[in-house]
């Protein structure tokens, strides 16, 4: 969190320490500072979060992954939480380059990379653009943005259909910056509660963490940047070959199975060695709703 975060919100140091042997650190490369939380020993596993959350979305899986003899590193994406914004746009390629700087800067030559939502898109881009650095890839809820994004209607036909209205809101220049102001807790609550099977899976404190991150200066503008870059990302994908890395897709049953179906078809197009597992009884935020199952699937895949 930034210094301006809610006074009741614990610092990233405190949050990291609450997970056991984890510490919160900052790394600066090419004038951009990234906040990451690291713990455990062994091969590196990088975790990349998504909107409207932070690295804290992985709090329930990090200790168990570290216990399986891995170095676990969860990082706030550029513009998220205490990580710096980017000046030249937030296309996945640019964000992946920053993650590469961090990993290489820490002295690693290989990493497994797992991401959720936008984090998954960055994970794919890292594999596509820095293939030698990446060992295995876990894509939760999303592959890389592709043409299929252009098929989703603004108005859903049926109530169960996917309706990521925030894409539209953030896409319009200046609009999100105007509308999403002031305390963000009600906003975070409404977004999470619409997605969670059981709202208690994300507790009061967790929601305060996400709200504090989203109401820090520039946070909404940065988040808008992640969505405004989608057209660039879709074009970038045309220049990529299928990634050769073993890839595990994890999908919720959101949208009456739409997310799962789309992830399967996207992995068939975008990867050479990918398969998808559906996480039952959970919405979009399954690292927080079904952490034990997520850990089991990830370790089964990574080992």
């Amino acid at each position, binding site marked *: 969190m930034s210094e301006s975060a809610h006074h009741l919100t614990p610092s990233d140091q405190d949050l990291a320490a609450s997970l056991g042997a984890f510490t919160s650190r900052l790394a600066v490369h090419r004038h951009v500072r990234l906040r990451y939380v690291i713990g455990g020993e062994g091969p590196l596993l990088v975790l990349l979060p998504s909107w409207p959350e932070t690295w804290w979305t992985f709090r329930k899986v990090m200790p168990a992954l570290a216990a399986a003899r891995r170095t676990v590193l969860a990082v706030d994406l550029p513009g998220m939480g205490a990580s710096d914004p980017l000046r030249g746009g937030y296309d996945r390629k640019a964000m992946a380059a920053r993650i590469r700087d961090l990993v290489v800067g820490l002295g690693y030559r290989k990493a497994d990379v797992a991401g959720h939502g936008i984090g998954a898109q960055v994970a794919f881009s890292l594999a596509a653009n820095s293939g030698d650095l990446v060992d295995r890839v876990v894509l939760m809820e999303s592959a890389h943005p592709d043409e299929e994004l252009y098929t989703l209607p603004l108005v859903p036909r049926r109530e169960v259909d996917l309706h990521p209205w925030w*894409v539209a*809101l953030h896409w319009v220049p200046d609009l999100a910056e105007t509308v*999403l102001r002031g305390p963000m807790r009600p906003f975070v609550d*409404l977004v999470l509660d619409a997605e969670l099977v059981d709202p208690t899976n994300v507790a009061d404190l967790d929601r305060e963490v996400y709200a504090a991150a989203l109401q820090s200066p520039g946070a909404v503008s940065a988040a808008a940047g992640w969505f405004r870059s989608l057209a660039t990302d879709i074009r970038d994908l045309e220049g990529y070959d299928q990634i050769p890395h073993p890839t595990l897709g994890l999908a919720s049953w959101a949208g009456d199975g739409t997310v799962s179906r789309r992830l399967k078809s996207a992995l068939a197009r975008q990867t050479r060695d990918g398969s998808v597992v559906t996480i039952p009884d959970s919405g979009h935020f399954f690292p927080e709703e079904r952490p034990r199952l997520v850990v089991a699937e990830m370790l089964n895949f990574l080992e």
Partner: protein
Amino acid sequence: MTTTMERPTAPSDEERAASLGDGFESAFETVDGVRLHYVSGGSGPLLLLLPGWPQTWWEFRRIMPALAGSRRVVALDLPGMGASDKPEGGYDKKSMARVVAGFIEQLGYERADVAGHDVGSQVAFALAATHPERVERVALLDILHPDESNYEFRMLPHKDMPLFPWWFAFNQVQGLPERLIEGRAHHLIDWVFDTFLPDPEAVSPLDRAVYADAYDSPDAIRGGNGWYQAFPQDIEDLADYDRLTMPVLGMVSGLADGMFAAHMQQTLPQQAADARVVVIPEAGHYFVEEAPDEVIEEFRRFFA
């Protein structure tokens, strides 16, 4: 967003109705348990005006006095709009049309000429389709009844899409817009008019304050969004409607590089046996306020 001038305070509906002269006044009528606000002036056959989002009866201020010469002109706040009630449901256009049909009857009229703009045009069409005995002639301004083409608007727009109505998506969400927009509707109103008016002065700071007030409360935001949340139902209902047989006038702006004009020219003749489409290419979506003289002239000819 870009408007930095101080925001004026909007006068009440009563004061603004009186400001039109010719005995215009603000009144209420309760239909099917829904209390409806309207502004009425003149006497003679009824011309009923139905406004759209994010506006109120006030969008017709520049044409009401001129049309009231030989007829009674009534501009109605739709269910969910302005000083009218905001019921929990009933925002599909067919249900709204039923309320409007009852309103016409309650004013003591068998039939009315009806003109609607934006969402008001969708209600006017549904009224003509479901209560043809109440509608003499109908004018549809800029927007047609929701149809399958609504689904062509995508969450992520292709760069060649000339219009991105992001609010179609946002207004579907229940509970959240009420919390985000409450007390801050002026941001939304300014965005809408700064974006869509070729001449931003056509809707003044005072007019904007009127609209912002009307969409500033959680109930008002919920009501207005109800019109959008009913689109899938409206699209299903459209399949059951017969072709209209009364005279129909379509007036359409240059909105979205003529995309709406092309859609109306292609679609309206299929939906109505006796339809004429007038394009006002240089005007934007709010042409009732931007080009009131052209609207008055067309209405005088059509509703003669």
